[in-house]
């Protein structure tokens, strides 16, 4: 019964949203009546509440193990803790789409009610948001209905959540990511409304700035959590695979980052106005593209949901329609927009716009990397895939140029050209120091590979420039932008850590019998496989190995495990990780051989913790920027 009510509420939301659109369409040519907006707003708020209540009931259904609902029956289980019963809702396509829509609705309703009652763009924004929510609700109900019942009798027991997904980081990762993705619907609809409205003297940056910043934080946290989870759960010891689905999350992130930067330029010195608008539209368009790639099954990826052409077609059609609509309005209004001021060469905004170009270039290269296999396959029928080497070659030079511009922009001023002399003074010291550090790295590691060294050099350039700036600041008491500083130090650290990780990390495959010990290398002097045990847990059996490693003068104990889940019969590996400041010792147990010995994979991952730490710094920098008192 509750299932039907929940279903009915979602359907009613569809009805209300359609009403708003139809009603406003008929009154489009009539003189705007003050009550028109009030009525639309009321209908919109009610529709949003219906979606929330409907989802709330769905959560209740999942908690109370209603296995007559087909989706819950195939993704949850009565033995699961409540936390995972709720998380099982977003463990597959239908439920995660539902969550996606709930977040879309939440952002929309919060934003529209925060706008001033008399704001001239309120009505158009409302209509745009209604259209988008309606489109996705229809997609959910028509092609991927989570409310479907198993008739006449429901399942007795659920089929269980996929064990690799049964993990706290992964339970939080999709909600964070979705909050980020859909948060940019605000910038998208507000900018579209602004362009439609046609009054270009109006200020639009202020209203959407903080909303976009918050969405950016969620997106960053979402991507980082996903990467962290992949690292410790999948047992490959990697943190980023350039998988198409990771790429479609990275593209909106890059677009959002570019957008925020140009938003600063646009609000500080009214340059790049149209460019900023374009980026604002692009972010959400890329989010929609991502939803299409992941949910159509068009690309074979570890993340893809079941292949369904109908869903793909609907998503492609609807996303394409929304994107083309916005871009069409943009193109139509472009000549009419009062050309904003020109960027002064050598000013802060000039460096900033160069990096904007670089970010768009990288979005384009990723887009090409994602779609190229599809293009090749449809032309020649050959199956190809594009892996990390492509992205590494593309990103290394881009990162280097970006680092140069970041370094140059630190001391540059808004709207005023920096003198060549000042520029040289600012960049000489970091360049020399970075080169020196790179030389030391080369001497110490005795490894040389051009791409990682470009990364190390670029990372150091950014880090050292900011450190010098901070030291300088201690003496001169000059103004320093803390938020931007911390975020960029995070970026420099990211480049540095990723590159160091790629040259220093290594892997050893070992084969030992219980009780045996071997020496691996100078660092891992003794690897002692003490014993192996079979344990039982609530919903899985555990094979747990006891290993002690004598590494760099210290003994560490590791317990890598293999788990067999009783319901699905699926086997997963639980890697054992020992973390120190510089490196992780990452151990995975393999299989038992006929002679009773076991295989192990020992990975030494350098600077891996620093990668997550750098993402944290970026988020922290962003938070500081949001909560900063508006400068006088």
């Amino acid at each position, binding site marked *: 019964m509750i299932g039907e009510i929940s279903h009915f509420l979602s359907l009613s939301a569809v009805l209300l949203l359609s009403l708003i659109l139809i009603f406003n369409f008929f009154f489009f040519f009539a003189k705007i009546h003050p009550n028109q907006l009030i009525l639309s707003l009321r209908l919109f708020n009610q529709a949003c509440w219906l979606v929330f209540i409907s989802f709330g009931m769905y959560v209740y259904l999942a908690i109370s193990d209603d296995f007559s609902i087909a989706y819950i029956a195939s993704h949850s289980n009565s033995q699961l803790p409540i936390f995972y019963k709720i998380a099982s809702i977003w463990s597959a396509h239908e439920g995660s789409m539902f969550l996606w829509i709930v977040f879309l609705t939440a952002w929309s309703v919060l934003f529209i009610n925060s706008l001033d009652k008399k704001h001239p763009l309120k009505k158009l924004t409302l209509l745009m948001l209604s259209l988008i929510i309606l489109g996705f609700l229809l997609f959910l109900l028509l092609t991927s209905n989570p409310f479907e019942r198993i008739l006449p009798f429901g399942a007795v027991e659920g089929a269980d959540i996929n064990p690799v997904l049964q993990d706290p980081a992964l339970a939080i990762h999709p909600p964070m990511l979705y909050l980020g993705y859909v948060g940019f619907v605000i910038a998208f609809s507000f900018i579209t409304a602004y362009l439609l409205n046609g009054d270009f003297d109006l200020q639009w940056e202020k209203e959407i700035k903080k909303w976009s910043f918050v969405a950016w934080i969620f997106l960053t946290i979402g991507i980082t959590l996903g990467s962290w989870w992949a690292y410790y759960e999948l047992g*490959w010891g990697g943190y980023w695979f350039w998988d198409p689905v990771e790429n479609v999350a990275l593209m909106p992130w890059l677009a959002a980052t570019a957008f925020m930067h140009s938003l600063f330029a646009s609000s500080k010195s009214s340059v790049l106005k149209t460019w900023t608008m374009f980026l604002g539209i692009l972010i959400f368009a890329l989010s929609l593209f991502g939803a299409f790639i992941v949910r159509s099954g068009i690309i074979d990826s570890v*993340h893809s949901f079941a292949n369904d052409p109908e869903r793909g077609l609907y998503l492609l059609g609807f996303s394409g329609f929304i994107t083309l609509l916005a871009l069409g309005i943009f193109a139509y209004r472009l000549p009419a927009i009062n050309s904003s001021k020109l960027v002064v060469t050598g000013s802060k905004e000039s460096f900033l716009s160069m990096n904007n170009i670089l970010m768009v270039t990288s979005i384009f290269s990723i887009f090409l990397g994602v779609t190229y296999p599809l293009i090749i396959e449809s032309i020649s029928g*050959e*199956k*190809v895939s594009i*892996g990390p080497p*492509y992205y590494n*070659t593309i990103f290394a030079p881009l990162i280097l140029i970006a680092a140069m511009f970041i370094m140059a922009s630190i001391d540059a001023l808004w709207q005023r050209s920096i003198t060549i002399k000042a520029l040289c003074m600012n960049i000489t010291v970091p360049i020399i120091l970075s080169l020196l550090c790179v030389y030391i790295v080369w001497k110490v590691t005795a490894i040389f590979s051009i791409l990682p060294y470009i990364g190390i050099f670029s990372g150091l350039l950014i880090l050292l420039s900011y450190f010098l700036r901070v030291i300088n600041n201690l003496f001169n008491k000059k103004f320093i932008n803390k938020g931007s500083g911390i975020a960029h130090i995070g970026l420099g650290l990211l480049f540095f850590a990723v590159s160091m990780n790629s040259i220093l990390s290594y892997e050893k495959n070992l084969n030992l019998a219980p009780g045996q010990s071997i020496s691996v290398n100078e660092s891992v002097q003794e690897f002692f496989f003490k014993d192996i045990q079979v344990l039982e847990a609530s919903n899985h059996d555990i094979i747990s190995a006891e290993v002690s490693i004598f590494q760099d003068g210290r003994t560490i104990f590791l317990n890598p495990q293999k788990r067999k889940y009783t319901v699905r019969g*699926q086997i997963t590996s639980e890697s054992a990780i020992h973390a120190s400041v510089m490196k992780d010792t990452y151990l995975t147990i393999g299989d038992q051989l006929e002679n009773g010995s076991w*295989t192990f994979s020992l990975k030494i991952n350098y600077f891996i913790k620093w990668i997550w730490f750098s993402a944290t710094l970026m988020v922290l920098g962003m938070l500081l920027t949001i909560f900063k008192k508006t400068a006088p």
Partner: protein
Amino acid sequence: MLQVRKNRLWKLIIILFLSAGGISLILFSLNSKLDLFYTPSEMLIADIKPGYRIKLGGMVKNGSIRRDGTLIEFLVTDFSEEVPVTFDGVPPDLFKEDSGVVILGYFLDGRFEAEEIFAKHDENYMPPELLIDEVKA
């Protein structure tokens, strides 16, 4: 020429130069960094340059897995041809006999040297090509 125009021209030249450089870099790396995908039958008749990294997709033949220390040997089949594969390391959890695999590596003298074996999150995963073949058969 006006100073403003001169500046604008310079900017335009720099932008054009950068994007031309960028695009040629992209196209260059796209062409050299592609991994071609083959099924065993395709691989045996294809003309593959030695030292060219490729992907092999198929099923692990039942009863074909042999282990020696950390070394694993097995046959990948598409139900008409099979290719012997060697791999040094710990394969992913979902690697087992009679299930689908995708392997990245090098094909040399009739043997496939695996660099990486890919696991799919989905335990029922099978390379799409094989599914189509099965339906046909």
